[in-house]
């Protein structure tokens, strides 16, 4: 026992010495060339880092390739830990227990605020902040901040303002991709008349319903109201919310519009609803983000030919662009953690990742030419060109009890609304009740 302790102390000292020794070498290049601070060889040799994120399967493999690039460059050993679907449930106990991972990738900026309040996050160092300033628009920087301090970097984006459709179903019905809401409703009627259900809703996955609401709301109420509602500065009983819900009822309220009826839709979770469109060919459209492409490909549809998308149609004055994304934060004070954040925020790190499938970068200096297929290229272009008008997924900005928990808050109320789309007033007052509880 005594021996082991001595060894541990020695090891600790060794790390400390190594860290001190490295300090000058890391700061020097940072001063000269801001873009790449870690050019001076393997400065983090022997440093061990743990990164926790929710990705599994293909996404995990791709991310590990990026981590490997970081290891190769710096010499640090990075291990990946999967948090499972519910990042909060994984990190909560680890924070309480005092042993969080060095770096965590949070699926919601709402968690940044929450953990910052618990003092579980380490503020970004100047080098990382500088990297963010060169590569991101101010809106994204603000998303990773709490109480005026920067804590996180948005490293991966998801484009949520898309409607995917099966081109054969549109051809059979003789309709074109609609550009506004009325055209969408009309096209849906025509598709229903042709004998195909127009929409496959993923009602069991509450977040798909909040995404739908956000697009319609951003479009009908405009970005200012969107920001206010995100912060609960206007109540959910506001007439602008009623307008958006009524628009949704136009497509969710007709029996022939919803595949398997509302009760069937409420038992359909996210990837299954995509399969119902592209695999089983039962419906024409599914309203979800860019990552539908992965599932559509698995279902045997060729993206761009059988599986196509159109931008979410304008339901009001604004053409909506809603993004989701993952924010990387440091949970331990270690030079390795900051170096990794800086790498992920840099053009270099972003471009390594961009060459792999299934990734969209919010980094404005990562050229869309890096993306492996034309579809992703086009998506990347829309994000960059939309610039300051883009909004972040509202439910992910809310406290997770309201915007991110199965069977609670907005998820639950919108699911109930899908069950009875006529009850706009009831849905609004229930949303307000839930919001009051979550924001108190």
């Amino acid at each position: 026992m005594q021996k082991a302790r001595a060894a541990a102390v020695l090891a600790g000292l060794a790390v400390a010495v190594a860290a001190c020794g490295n300090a000058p070498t890391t700061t020097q290049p940072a001063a000269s060339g801001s873009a790449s601070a870690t050019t001076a060889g393997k400065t983090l040799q022997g440093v061990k880092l743990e990164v926790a994120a929710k990705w599994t399967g293909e996404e995990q493999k791709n991310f590990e390739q990026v981590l490997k690039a970081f290891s190769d460059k710096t010499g640090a050993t990075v291990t990946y830990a999967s948090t499972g679907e519910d990042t909060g449930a994984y990190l909560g106990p680890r924070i309480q227990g005092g042993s969080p991972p060095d770096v965590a990738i949070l699926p919601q900026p709402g968690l940044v605020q929450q953990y910052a309040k618990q003092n579980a996050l380490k503020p970004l160092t100047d080098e990382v902040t500088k990297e963010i300033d060169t590569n991101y628009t101010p809106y994204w920087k603000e998303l990773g901040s709490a109480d005026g301090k920067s804590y996180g970097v948005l490293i991966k984006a998801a484009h949520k303002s898309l409607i995917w459709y099966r081109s054969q179903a549109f051809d059979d019905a003789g309709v074109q991709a609609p550009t506004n809401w009325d055209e969408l409703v009309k096209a849906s009627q025509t598709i229903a008349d042709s004998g195909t259900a127009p929409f496959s809703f993923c009602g069991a996955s509450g977040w798909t319903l909040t995404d739908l609401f956000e697009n319609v709301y951003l479009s009908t109420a405009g970005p200012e109201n969107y920001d206010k509602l995100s912060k609960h500065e206007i109540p959910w009983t506001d007439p602008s919310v009623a307008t958006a819900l009524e628009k949704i009822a136009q497509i969710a309220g007709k029996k022939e519009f919803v595949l398997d009826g509302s009760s069937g839709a409420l038992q359909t979770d996210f990837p299954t609803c995509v399969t119902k469109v592209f695999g089983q060919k039962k419906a024409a459209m599914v309203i979800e983000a860019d990552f539908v492409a992965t599932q559509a490909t698995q279902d045997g549809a060729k993206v761009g030919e059988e599986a196509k998308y159109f931008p979410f149609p304008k339901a009001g004055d604004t053409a909506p662009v809603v993004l989701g994304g993952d924010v990387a934060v440091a949970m331990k004070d270690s030079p390795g953690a900051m170096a990794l954040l800086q790498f992920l925020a840099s053009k270099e790190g972003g471009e390594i990742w961009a060459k792999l499938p299934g990734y969209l970068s919010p980094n404005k200096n990562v050229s869309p030419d890096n993306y492996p297929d034309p579809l992703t290229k086009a998506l990347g272009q829309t994000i960059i060109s939309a610039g300051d008008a883009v909004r972040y997924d509202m439910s992910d900005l809310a406290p997770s009890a309201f915007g991110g928990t199965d069977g609670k808050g907005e998820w639950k109320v919108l699911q109930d609304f899908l069950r009875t789309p006529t009850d706009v007033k009831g849905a609004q007052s229930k949303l307000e009740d839930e919001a009051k509880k979550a924001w108190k």
Partner: protein
Amino acid sequence: MTERLDGPQAPLEDDTSGGSASGPDETPRKQRLIGPSPTVALVFLLPAAVLLGIWVVYPIVYSIFRSLFDAAGSGFVGLGNYMTIFTDPSMLTTIRNNLIWVVVAPIIVTTLGLIFAVLTERIKWATAFKLIVFMPMAVSLMAAGVIFRLVYDEDPDKGVANAVLTTIHDTFSSSQGYPEARPREGDQSAVAADKGAVVTKQPVQVGQPVLIPIVGIKPQIMPSDAQPAKAAPPGNDLSGTVWFDFTAGGGGKNGAVDASEKGLPGMTVEAVKDGTVAGTATTADDGTFRFDGLPAGSYVVRLPQSNFQAAYHGLTWLGPTLITPAIIGAFIWVWAGFAMVLIAAGLAAIPRDSLEAARIDGATEWQVFRRITVPLLSPVLLVVFVTMIINTLKVFDLVFIIAPPSVQPQSNVVALEMWRVSFGGGNNQGLGSALAIFLLILVLPFMIMNIRRFRREDT
């Protein structure tokens, strides 16, 4: 368990502090002298006491303490969290569900176990039967949940429950004609839906052909013998066309028979006058129909509901109304075997002579079962019953896995809510602790009952 620990410890301390014991202590002291010395006993008890203290006593005490604070753990809220449990509507649903569980599940499990146990006594293949019924115990609850999620799937092609229901239903009546088809609606349309049937909005004169446009026909139910639709030629009879008013690829004119549009063969058409059916016809392959020998006048033409009989899809097991019974079904599947094995063991221990004596005295089998077997089995039945109550109170995994997220609020139970509130997104460990304590209080009486029972059996 803690009671047992405390029991011997208290007198031990007494002993070390005051050497001269008083009168009432006399008897236990004599007993102790036979066994090991108090210090040795203490040393042997210590590891268990420390472990229990760390893993049982401390967490309970800390949970009680934590339950008096808010989400952040810094603001004291008194009994506020407990108030929330009994005022929040979703929490009340949770408590109601737990009540249903506790009332229904243990009774069914115990009854089924008893029936299985008594019946297996009399059949030849008892061991094989018992093995099969006991098998679900070998499956983890989580896996059982995954299995039953599939069993209850709404799609009869996937879910066994609905596959059975639809098969039974279809042997008696099957779907007919054109399910889920509907008339083309709108102001220009001459027809409208009426209680599942399709009727002309205006009465039709004999000699004037009627057009009945139908839409929403799925490609797979379009009959292969359907011919391109034709408008019925004017004549002296009441005639018309029922057709699929949709040109593939678009471009057709609504309400008009276009070249590539197909008729709907085999559709029953009724001519209705003053509420009574005056004549019935069936459409031909090109969708035309003709009523022969109908007296002149005006009629409402109707396609009765039987044309549009939707296929039976079974029950929505995983919907808000049936979800709790459905999950209880899965629970019974898992635990019935366990109950059966325990009760069968008890049954084997029953003295045969009393059963035989009753039979000789002329008791019927039912009387023997009711008056002899069940009373003699009651200690075992009680153990099974109480164990099941404790199991139902802490049920978590089955609900978590079987209920789709959209009906989780309707199927929620206290143990699941406790996890969800504290870790699964709610991040309110104050309220979570309060729920945990609430659950502990619910379980406690049954625990004490079981412990007492074991003690009595010991002595």
